[in-house]
């Protein structure tokens, strides 16, 4: 049985994205969840499945108790960092297609202000990173920027990828964020600003790195036959898949450190959807670093390996470009909620409800997740 078009995104919700929130991660998660459920035209007690994202989320039990859910039929934890929301789409699609649930909530909240759980402190708290914790952290190699930098450096040396191409990604994201009322970074930037931003982990400058921010995001995934009477135009999940790189727990030991799990996953999702990358109208690509966007275009077959740098140049991925990408501003300029904001944005684009960043007549889009050093997930979505 194919999972294609068996599930729809029926509700989306986000809190205000900001830095300095006084709310806890769980409060933000609950607020976003209520918005997504209301957006779907549902009540919290209609939710019969929940996939809380991330290590600071509420548990399934928390949602039963706070929402008063009478009969939760499914819950799961997807432990793949920034790939978790996209991989959760695969799980939710399979579960509603199998008739287990009607409406599954995928939900995330994050407060870096209220915690000490910041980028550099996080890695060694996560069991999947135990090799990094034991063998790399003591040498001063612990943050994602440091761990991913050698991948980017190698891509630059092997394929001639340039600082300006990283900058093109940063600038395009900022141009989109400026169109979004709920984005943190609103000041225009140029390629020169990108080049002049301070170096964090060579070759990554500050403007190559995603934000640390507070906020919550949630989506409701419904069985397609339960979605017809809900308020919004249906957005079908036409293709969805997940993949893992070789040596997933250590980039250092990976034969080809420029290859991600998405390269295994993408052909499956596009085949399931019956479309090709060139058919895509709008892309929401997990952007922990500028380089990661370049790399994922290659992994998905939008261009050949090594040509991702040239692909993002010339305004292609910015507002009005041939392939508008991260039309909300992404993790680089909107907010970092582990890419659940990318799923929210793709659904809005395909509903034609994306405000000033709306891609005209968008009918087919792709969203990716990327996390934990190379795990990947993606969904091809289609407007009914």
């Amino acid at each position: 049985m194919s999972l294609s078009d068996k599930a729809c995104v029926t509700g989306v919700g986000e809190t205000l994205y900001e830095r300095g929130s006084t709310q806890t991660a769980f409060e933000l998660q609950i607020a976003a969840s209520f918005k997504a459920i209301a957006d779907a035209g549902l009540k919290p007690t209609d939710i019969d499945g929940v996939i809380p994202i991330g290590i600071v989320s509420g548990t399934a039990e928390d949602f039963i108790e706070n929402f008063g859910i009478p009969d939760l039929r499914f819950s799961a934890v997807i432990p793949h960092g920034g790939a978790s929301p996209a991989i959760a789409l695969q799980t939710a699609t399979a579960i509603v297609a199998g008739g287990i649930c009607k409406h599954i909530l995928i939900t995330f909240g994050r407060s870096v202000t209220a915690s000490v759980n910041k980028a550099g402190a996080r890695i060694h708290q996560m069991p999947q990173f135990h090799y990094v914790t034991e063998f790399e952290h003591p040498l001063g190699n612990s943050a994602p920027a440091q761990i991913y930098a050698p991948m980017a450096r190698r891509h630059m040396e092997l394929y001639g990828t340039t600082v300006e191409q990283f900058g093109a990604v940063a600038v395009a994201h900022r141009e989109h964020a400026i169109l979004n009322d709920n984005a943190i970074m609103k000041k225009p930037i140029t390629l020169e600003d990108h080049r002049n931003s301070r170096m964090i982990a060579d070759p990554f400058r500050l403007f190559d790195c995603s934000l640390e921010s507070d906020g919550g995001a949630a989506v409701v995934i419904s069985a397609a036959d339960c979605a017809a009477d809900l308020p919004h135009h249906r957005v079908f999940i036409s293709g969805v898949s997940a993949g893992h790189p070789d040596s997933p727990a250590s980039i250092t030991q990976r034969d080809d450190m420029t290859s991600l799990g998405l390269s295994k996953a993408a052909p499956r999702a596009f085949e399931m959807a019956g479309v090709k990358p060139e058919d895509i109208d709008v892309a929401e690509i997990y952007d922990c670093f500028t380089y990661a966007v370049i790399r994922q275009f290659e992994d998905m077959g939008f261009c050949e390996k090594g040509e991702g740098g040239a692909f993002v140049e010339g305004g292609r991925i910015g507002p009005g470009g041939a392939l508008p990408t991260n039309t909300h501003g992404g993790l680089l300029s909107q907010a970092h909620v582990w890419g659940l904001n990318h799923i929210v944005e793709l659904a809005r684009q395909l509903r034609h409800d994306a405000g000033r960043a709306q891609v005209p007549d968008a009918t087919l889009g792709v969203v990716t997740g990327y996390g934990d050093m190379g795990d990947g997930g993606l969904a091809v979505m289609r407007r009914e």
Partner: protein
Amino acid sequence: MTDLPAKPQPPRNALSEPYWEAAARGELMVQACASCGKLRHYPRLICDRCHDDAVSWTALSARGVIHSWTVAHHAFHPAFIPELPYTIVTVDLEEGLRALGRWIGETPFIGQPAQGRFETDGPVPELIFEPRAET
């Protein structure tokens, strides 16, 4: 800077203990499958080729070439602030594994010959790589 915290300690365990004991002596040792001989680094419970759990430990040359590198300009742990900027390299070892270590020398380049050694003065042995004249 006297109130800086100590550097993070590796959470050693039974699987990795031989690595750290060798490192304290200045030797880079890795697991070798006692059944099929496949080398593995970092330490794992079983061999991913033949699935045997028997292990012998073998010393490596610590010779190799630079696979990639980064220069840290921002300390994500405060203990490393005094060392900024510092360079981290990943090195393709002659025996076919890859190792991560600190780099001492001019800015490295991919393919540059490197020689590793352990700095054993501090509380944790630190793997250091330096440029190596090709022989």
